[in-house]
């Protein structure tokens, strides 16, 4: 009987109840940071180039383009929208229009129009997924194919070159040694984090992903929230594509290929649940940093590309398995 009484008490103040879970929870939070440190440590020991300012700036720059997409993709996963596969098309849309329109309307309006049109793609995705109820994978795959087709037809399937070198200079400029493109990425990540973790829209996003019916029955505009995640991702991909185009000063229709999987990998490795309802921008960013550093180390060490793909594949499988295991234990 004393046993039972003691049990009731510890359950009440929560101390004992949390202890077991706290360890697992801590592991799920700090595990990734430890992994990042391990990669940095290994990279520094194994390769003289790794731990240099030059290399870090390179990593940061290449991270920025995919990182902006990651911010949007986090919303898609958290809302329970699985993935946005139209990202390569929206990136291409951003990159090609941003360069192609420069000669006619100037670099800044060109950038704005490119991003806006990418956003329209997201709006169609959002309506298809949120309001019509089409499976997100199918809807975004279809939309991506259509948009890519339109973009290709518009530029005649050739490479588009920039007309205004000063715009490239702006993107490549540095503030205190940090590339402008990285600053834009970090600003977008901070805004994304604010929206997801602090605003009512972010809370609605998490609630809709956590339990769609319950959110709906709590007067959350679930359809709009679901659609919104795809609009956000399309805008992010449009910006990302525009910056990519400006950096390269050339763009082909397949310029965005592979970014969707890089973004999904980062988000999933960061521990954002593929089933929705759980995740944050900082987590996704940690996943991004880890994946990018790991890739960088592998490249520097001369690991062959197929093996790199193999390692990243294992990472995704491992992260998803962990997500499911944590969910079963009620931590995530």
């Amino acid at each position, binding site marked *: 009987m004393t046993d039972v009484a003691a049990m009731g008490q510890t359950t009440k103040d929560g101390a*004992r109840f949390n202890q077991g879970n706290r360890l697992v929870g801590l592991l799920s939070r700090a595990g990734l940071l430890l992994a990042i440190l391990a990669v940095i440590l290994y990279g520094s020991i194994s390769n003289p180039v790794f731990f240099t300012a030059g290399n870090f700036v390179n990593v940061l720059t290449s991270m920025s383009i995919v990182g902006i997409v990651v911010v949007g993709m986090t919303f898609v996963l958290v809302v329970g929208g699985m993935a946005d596969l139209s990202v390569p098309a929206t990136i291409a849309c951003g990159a090609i229009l941003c360069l192609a329109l420069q000669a006619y309307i100037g670099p800044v309006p060109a950038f704005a129009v490119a991003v806006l049109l990418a956003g329209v793609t997201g709006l169609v995705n959002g309506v298809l997924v949120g309001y019509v109820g089409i499976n997100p994978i199918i809807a975004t795959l279809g939309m991506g194919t259509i948009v890519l087709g339109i973009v290709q037809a518009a530029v005649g399937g050739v490479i588009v070159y920039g007309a205004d070198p000063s715009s490239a200079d702006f993107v490549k400029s540095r503030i205190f040694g940090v590339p402008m493109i990285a600053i834009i990425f970090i600003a977008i990540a901070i805004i994304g984090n604010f929206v997801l973790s*602090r605003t009512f829209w972010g809370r609605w996003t998490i609630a809709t992903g956590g339990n769609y*019916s319950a959110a709906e029955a709590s007067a959350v505009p679930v359809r709009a929230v679901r659609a919104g995640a795809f609009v956000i991702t399309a805008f992010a991909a449009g910006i990302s594509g525009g910056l990519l185009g400006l950096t390269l000063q050339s763009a082909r229709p397949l310029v965005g290929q592979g970014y969707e999987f890089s973004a999904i990998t980062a988000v999933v490795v960061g521990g954002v649940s593929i089933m929705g309802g759980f995740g944050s921008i900082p987590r996704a960013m940690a996943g991004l940093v880890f994946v990018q550093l790991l890739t960088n180390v592998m490249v520097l060490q001369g690991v062959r590309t197929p093996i790199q793909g193999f390692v990243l594949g294992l990472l995704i499988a491992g992260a998803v398995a962990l997500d499911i295991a944590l969910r079963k234990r009620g931590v995530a």
Partner: protein
Amino acid sequence: MPSAASALHMRGISKVFPGVKALSGVELAVRFGTVHAIVGENGAGKSTLMKILSGAYAPTTGTIEVAGTDVRMKRPADAQRLGIRMVHQELNLVPDLTVAENIFLGRMPKRLGFFDRGGMLRRAAAVLAELGTSIDPQERLGDLTISQQQLVEIAKAYAADPRIIVLDEPTSSLSEHETAALFRILRKMRDAGIAIIYISHRLKEVLEIADEVTVLRDGAMIETRAASGITAAEMIRLMVGREVSNVFPKTPSVIGKQVLSVRGIGDGARFADVSFDVRAGEILGLTGLVGAGRTEVARAIFGLAPLTTGTIEIDGAPVTIRSPAAAARAGIAYVPEDRKGDGIVPAMTVRENISLPVLRRLANRFGRVRRGVERDLAQTYVQKFSIVPPDGERRIGLLSGGNQQKAVISRWLATDPKVLILDEPTRGVDVGAKAEIHGIIGQLVANGMAVVMISSELPEIMGVCDRVVVMRDGRASAPIAREGLTEERIMALATGEDSAEGEAA
């Protein structure tokens, strides 16, 4: 006496989860040919005990004897081999298969190595007939009513030739009429020598069907007694550790003007021509058999499903409701029937769950939710309704059913609604929490709110409501005033065994 043979003996069963002791030293002895009820509040350890019995969990300490032999069960298949079958509260059936295919799922009869369809149908028909049901084994399961599906689930367990059958809240979706039919089946199975373990919150039913009753509280076994030697009041006292005097208290309130008026609404499919009014300070009961259309009516009024005909008025003015958000603006709130499915967002905290419908109001002009205001709001309700643990930052999925329900009700009170629709607000919650929820409803109407309460439980409907509307096959009866309420009258209206004249209130 053959019934003296021991079917199951669990000794000194303890189960420790990381950080919690769910069971400590539980003893359970069940004999063949008896119905053994297990009662206890939510969180008392019934589910854990049954999961151990079904092989889903391994006990931390203790031994299990089935039919006098020590057994060790590592997985559910082990328990099934030993002849232990579970009938879960949530049905484990495939809607697109036929009744017969469901009954023999995973163990289809074979002849010469090939699937024997004829043999399966014959055996399914035999089992169903033996249980005294008239369900056609060739019918698609999804076309059956929920209560018929429940019987198929039981038939599935029975067809496996079990020694022990465990039923977890089998009557929670059944009307009283269907419950009586279920009990006839259970008695048949008992008389065939099967040991039946019966878990239920409904004490009246326990007294009716059980031979023995075991009470669990806080993970410990409190007492096992012959059902003939115990009363419902005693069971409640053992379950909660205190006397609960009046199970259904009715606080008198002043009934005011009409708030919600529903006129001839229909959805073109599951209900038609439904009309009723609810006045300030009044609790209107909406009852009937499962599948009569009660939940569909509530969901349509709340904008979760479209209406094809009829009008809804709030305070005498017609309103158009196409979404829950519009319903909330009109002053209508709805607490859904399926708490886990439609009520809570389990991974969110109690605070976040409570603030959900009013989140926009809590945000500043940048959309940022004002944490301090939100925390105060949640804390107000946590204290007001004594939600346990009294911590708004706890994930709601970790709370007991009753406390989750209090949080879901709080969520809607924060919108300051004129009408509150509660769909089976006390289903699956324990006795103590039930009384608390009734207390909360009583307070609300005392403050002038209009309440519509859907319930299948007649004592609850009769104890709490001022007027009652009975639904049958998508049609609503005229309201019956409290004075004219009898169980017989409600059942007659619900089952249609009454002539039409009786419906005038």
